[in-house]
């Protein structure tokens, strides 16, 4: 029951937040010089002021800002994000055709980063003078300082060009014949490099934090208690200590979710991954306002859902969070 209430509360906050995002995005796009009419006129090879005015009134661009804003919000509430003249299709369907690719990249990278980060962190916390521990420290510094596009390009050179293990770009190879399994393997092969590239920063972050929090937890009184009960080292570390040291890592993962999404834009550009990031890049160049707004809206949605999941995960891990709400 309390869980339902907490979720309802979070959803309410999420709705308010999304509304704020909508208003802010729309206002910022409005402030930027140039509009759809300019781009259309440009693609037509120039137009006179009459045609410009026609286009503006067709798109409702001659209306006052407040009217445009209200109309936009009204449309979004009906799941209508507008029409992209550049792609010649509704923005909603355009985004839904690209969203799965981005979600696949983002979620896989985040899960990989969490798993590997936590495992490395736990291992290096237990063997503080071991080689893995030093590796984690150096790797964390490296992974965090290296920009994703650079890491991505280096990986491409190494594992696509010099040692051709993985495909250079794209998500699927249309020439691959065979059933579901063959196509699945093909997808996995395409995913390896982009996912590793995107995950590398976060593996560095999470492993470092997990190492620190694990070391702190291992020194607590309740770990001494667990050992005094005669539990095996594995039970002490992976049951009693791990659950306690996960909280900061999960919190950070939630905070970093937006960074993962924005990192995906860069990674998609490097690997020509057909997702929202590539779409965003193209629509910014094309001044495709409805599409840009739509992508911003969906990015906000993805981050908010990610944070909701983080909140629920924290509640599941720590009973003290549960009783606070």
């Amino acid at each position, binding site marked *: 029951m309390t869980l339902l209430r907490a979720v309802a509360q979070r959803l309410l906050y999420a709705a308010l937040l999304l509304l704020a995002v909508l208003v802010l995005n729309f206002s910022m796009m409005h402030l930027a010089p140039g509009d759809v009419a300019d781009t259309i006129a440009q693609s037509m090879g120039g137009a006179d002021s009459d045609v410009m005015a026609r286009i503006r009134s067709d798109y409702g661009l001659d209306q006052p800002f407040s009217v445009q804003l209200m109309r936009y919000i009204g449309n979004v509430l009906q799941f209508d994000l507008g029409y992209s003249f550049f792609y010649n299709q509704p923005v909603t369907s355009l985004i839904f055709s690209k969203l799965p690719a981005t979600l696949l990249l983002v979620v896989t990278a985040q899960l990989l980063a969490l798993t590997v980060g936590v495992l490395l962190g736990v291992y290096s916390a237990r063997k503080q003078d071991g080689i893995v521990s030093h590796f984690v420290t150096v790797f964390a510094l490296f992974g965090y300082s290296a920009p994703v596009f650079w890491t991505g390009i280096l990986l491409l050179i190494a594992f696509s060009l010099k040692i051709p293990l993985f495909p250079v770009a794209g998500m699927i190879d249309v020439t691959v014949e065979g059933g579901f399994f063959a196509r699945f393997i093909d997808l996995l092969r395409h995913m390896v490099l982009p996912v590793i590239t995107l995950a590398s920063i976060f593996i560095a972050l999470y492993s470092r934090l997990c190492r620190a929090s694990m070391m702190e937890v291992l020194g607590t009184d309740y770990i001494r*208690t667990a050992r*005094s*009960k005669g539990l*095996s080292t594995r039970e002490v570390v992976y049951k009693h200590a791990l659950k306690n040291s996960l909280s900061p890592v999960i919190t950070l993962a939630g905070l970093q979710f937006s960074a993962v999404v924005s990192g995906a834009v860069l990674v998609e550009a490097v690997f020509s991954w057909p997702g929202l990031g590539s779409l965003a890049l193209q629509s910014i160049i094309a001044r495709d306002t409805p599409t840009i707004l739509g992508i911003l809206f969906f990015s906000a949605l993805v981050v908010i859902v990610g944070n909701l999941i983080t909140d629920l995960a924290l509640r599941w891990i*720590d009973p003290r969070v549960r009783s606070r709400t």
Partner: protein
Amino acid sequence: MTALLRVENLRIELATRLGVAPVIDDVSFELAAGETLSFVGESGCGKSMTALAIMGLLPDKVGRIAAGKILFNGEDMTQASDERLRSLRGNDISMIFQEPMTSLNPVFTIGEQIAEVLRRHKQMDKRDAWKRAAELLDAVRIPDATHRVGHYPHQLSGGQRQRVMIAMALACEPKVLIADEPTTALDVTIQAQIFDLLEDLRKDMGTAIIMITHDMGVVAEMADRMIVMYAGRKIEQGDVHTVLDHPRHPYTKGLIACVPHLVATLDEHRPPLTEVSGIVPGLQEFGKNECLFASRCDRVVERCLRERPTEQRFDKDQVSACWQANTL
């Protein structure tokens, strides 16, 4: 007296920045089945170290047993494998700690934390262990135990948490229970309740208790025998009444004099409170062949600074490590 636990010439070395220091230096004692033995002394004199050594829980890489034996039922635990130690820990020998507020894992229910011990050592299945956990909570007088068993530590008060610790420690009916200042962090009223509880459970289960404390009142009330520790050395040992009536070490004498006397009325004359002046020497002094109490002792003679006092036996198994013990 058949010894259940016998510690022989135990020496524990602690690695410090200044080098290796013997925090426990040549300590021997015995614990009989069902008796309560009290360890007394100031902070840092090695009481807790002795307890952790018996549990096999000395901090990794920092502390180690350098010499001596810890015999439990004749088996030397300093030589036992990790696996063997784990099967004894929490089962035949268990321990409760000083800080009930932080000694329970915050993310597991108290029922799970008790049941875990039963599953580990008594091979109980999940349901039986959980049921037994509720019974144990009831035995340590937690009200509404069947309901509270599903609670988390933060939902309990300090006194209740210490009761949970006791329930956990006694779950497998251990032969030895080590209580390391179990009430230091609790209210005075709760202290009395916890001691009553321990005393009752000891009578029911016949568990021998090692009670570590710095409170002479607790010693007088709870213990059969006592050992006074100073700077990692055993300096006096004996039957509680004998030692309290006639301490044969100046340090014990000082500790007893520190206890305020109860008076009937406010204007009644009360003797001024005394203190044992000075402080325990630093760790780097610990290994020296001299009496480590000498710098604080009012009866110090030249020999005290030259030679570590040997243990001398008196009536009723009283032992004192003081060159002047005869004159006290």
